Each structure stands twice: as C-alpha cells, then as structure tokens.
C-alpha cells in the first residue's frame, strides 16, 4: 500500500497548540512522505466519533501520529477523557478501516501524553459540530477555562443568539456541557474547552 523506505515520525501538525499541551510534535514530514500520511488520513477521515457521528477521528484531533515501524503502519490515538467509553470502539473502528483499505496488520497505540485538548479540533470539525446542533468550543483551553474563571459567551448553534446560559457543567457526555438559549428557548450541548 505504500512505497518502501524508512519513514521518520510523520506528525500531523496543522493544529494549534496551547501552553497546556506541551507539544512534543517535532516537524512536518519530509517531502515525498506526506503522500503516505495523506493516504492514511484519507482512510481515517471516514472513521467517525460514535458519540458525535458527524465528526471524524481526524477532525476530533485524537489521531496524534502516523508512522511506520519497519513495514508496519503504526497509528497513535489519544483518548478525549480518561473514562471515555468510546475509546476502545474508536480504536477498533480505526483498525477495521485500515485493514479494509489494505494495510496489513496495522498497530493502534494509545498515547496519553500530551493530553488531548479541544484546541486540536479542526476548523472543519468545529463547523460540523455546529451544524449538528452542538456548539463548538469557544476560545482555547486553559486553566482559566477549566476552573470557570473565564466563562465564554457560547452562541446558540441553532439561531446564533448570544443570549445563552449554562444549565449544567455536563451534558450527554463528559466532553459537553448543557446550555439553553434564551431567544429560541432550545437547550443545546456545548463542546466545552478542555
């Protein structure tokens, strides 16, 4: 499925980082190797988050690294939350998609560090969340956003109004909070900053 040769760690590096992340992703892949990484990304682009089935694992920012160990494809995946019940399912779906695409015996590795942050959600991913009815994270992850010292204005994903209020710190899953729009009166999930 891929040209032979030794491939150094080919990091996916077009996502913003914050001081919480402590990014250790070093450098873009060298010319000529990007094609291999792109081919894998194209496959993973069809693997959706089972809990938000409009956003792919790539758009969610949980695919951290694509590499080859000798001839074997190695994909590093990071969980969103320690207890995310979808972690195993997502890893299984990634494995199945890669096998179906012809990659022989790919290795899916779980990586905890640096810890996932919503800053890694791609712009396309954010837009897909919004059109699905989930407000994407506002601003970037920081200690202040986690402690609630700087609660952002979260526009309603349904009508765009900024007259919204938080109902609960948690929504239908750990990664979301529950909000309510005071204009259209609809409740909605907010994909909170982490």
């Amino acid at each position, binding site marked *: 499925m891929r040209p032979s040769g030794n491939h150094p760690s080919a990091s996916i590096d077009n996502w913003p980082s914050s001081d*919480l992340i402590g990014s250790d992703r070093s450098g873009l892949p060298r010319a000529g190797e990007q094609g291999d990484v792109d081919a894998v990304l194209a496959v993973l682009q069809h693997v959706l988050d089972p809990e938000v089935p409009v956003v792919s694992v790539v758009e969610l920012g949980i695919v951290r690294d694509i590499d080859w160990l000798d001839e074997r494809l190695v994909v590093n995946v990071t*969980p969103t*939350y*320690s*207890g*995310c*019940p979808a972690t195993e399912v997502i890893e299984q779906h990634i494995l199945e998609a890669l096998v179906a695409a012809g990659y022989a015996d790919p290795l899916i590795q779980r990586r*905890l*560090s*640096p*810890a*996932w942050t919503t800053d890694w959600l791609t712009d396309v991913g954010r837009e897909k969340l919004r059109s699905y009815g989930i407000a994407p994270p506002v601003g970037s992850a920081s*200690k202040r956003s*986690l*402690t*609630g010292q700087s609660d952002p204005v979260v526009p309603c994903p349904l009508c765009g109004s900024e007259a919204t209020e938080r*109902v*609960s*710190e*948690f*929504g*239908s*899953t*750990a990664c979301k909070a*529950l909000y309510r729009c005071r204009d259209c009166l609809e409740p909605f999930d907010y994909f*909170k900053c*982490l």
Partner: protein
Amino acid sequence: MQNMAQKNIAQTTQTPLTDCLLRLGDNALVLGQRHAQLCGKAPALEEELALMNVGLDLFGQARNWLGYAAELMAAERATDKVDADQLAFRRDAQDFRNLLLVEQPNGDFADIIGRQFLFDAWHVHLLDGLAHSSDPRIAEVAAKSLKEATYHLRRSSEWVIRLGDGTEESHTRMQRALNNLWQFTGELLQADEIDQAMLAAGIAPDLQTVATRWKATVEEVLEEATLERPSYDAWMYTGGKVGHHTEHLGFLLAEMQYLPRAYPDATVW
C-alpha cells in the same frame, strides 16, 4: 482456596510504588462506584448526567492507575496474570488503599457534594504535583487526570456555594454534611512512610504542600458559601490508606464485585 489466592494479589506483591498506585486507583474507583450507585436516583436529570460523567472520569483514571499497578505486580511475580480488573474486582476490603472520605455513603445531595468537594480540592493539588513526577507514566496519567479533576472541582465548588449561600434549608444541610465529613479529612493531609518514600524518590509531591493548598481552596470556597469551617485540630479517623476501612466499604465492594466473583470464568459481559 481460590479466594485465598485471590485475596493475596495485593498482599504478596506490595512495594511503596504499587501501594502509592493502589491509593490513587482505589480513591478513583471507590468514589466512581459511589457515583454509579446514584444512577437513576439523582435529584434532577442534569445532575444525574453530571454525576455519571464525573464517575466515568474517575473510573477511567482508576483504570490507568490500577493498570500500571497491575503491570508492576505481574512483573514482580513473573507468573500470575494480574490486571486492573482483577485488582478492582478480586480484592477484599482490607486490601483497598482508598481514603475513608471517598467510601462514605451517598446520603443527601449535600453529602454527595460535600464529599466530592473535599476530595476534589485535594485531588487537583495532588495531581498537579504528580504531573511533575520522576516516573513518566505517573506524570502522564496525572496530567490527563488533572484536567478532569479541575473541572470536577469547579462543579463541586459551585454547588457548595449555591447550597451554602442558598436557602436556610440548603445551608443547614450543607453545613451538616461538612461537619460529618470533616472527621475523614485528616488522612488526606498526613504523610505516612509510603508518602515519605514517594516524596524521597521524587515520584509524589510533599503532602504538606498539598495540605497547604487544600486548606486555602477549602477556606476560600467555604467563606464564599457562608459556611463555617470545622477545626483542623478536630479528632480525625484515619486508616484508609493502610486498609483499615469504615464498615461502608465492604457493602460497596459486595455490590460492585458480585458479578465478576460469581462468574469468575466469564470473558464477555
């Protein structure tokens, strides 16, 4: 006979490091299970979702800590298989190393929030220190957990303030919960030999530093909540960290461990 062998998983393999990991994992596991017991019983739908999600975070953290402990134990024994599930479901109460605070029963909503707040305020400062551990595996699990615990503290603090500075009824209940739970906070702040060994190895932070920060957080929130802080010099129950538990843990474990113990050969749940 099988039970005897299982009971010894922890006893025969403990080193200060595995003990430290069991403490971290058991705190998260037991408090997570208290949350699980509230499934379908929370006072409001929104709070039910929140309680379940906090519990889920804690279970995830427990799996990370106990998974590491199990690997160390398995390497030490070289023969028997030990994994996080075995540690969670096949140990008896005296082999659990969690704080007495987290095993206290659910009671009313003020009890639930009070227990969570006193724990969260300690957990974030502990994890903050552990995120700089000399053990890289501990550092990465702690860094991940810290983000979650910070958000938990935000929620529990808000509730303590809302209940404390709320109606006469909510204030009375929040104060009563605080007074009842306070006697279990002593061992959060007192270092024993295991804590000392971990500090000396650069693996865990100085509990005195954690204690200072815990007190500052607790004082700040209680003041805003118009609640009275019980005395630090009050008499305290201790023993959870070395396996001497209150009677509540046994009942919690009996419920949590029933299925895996009744069907030890099951491979699919």
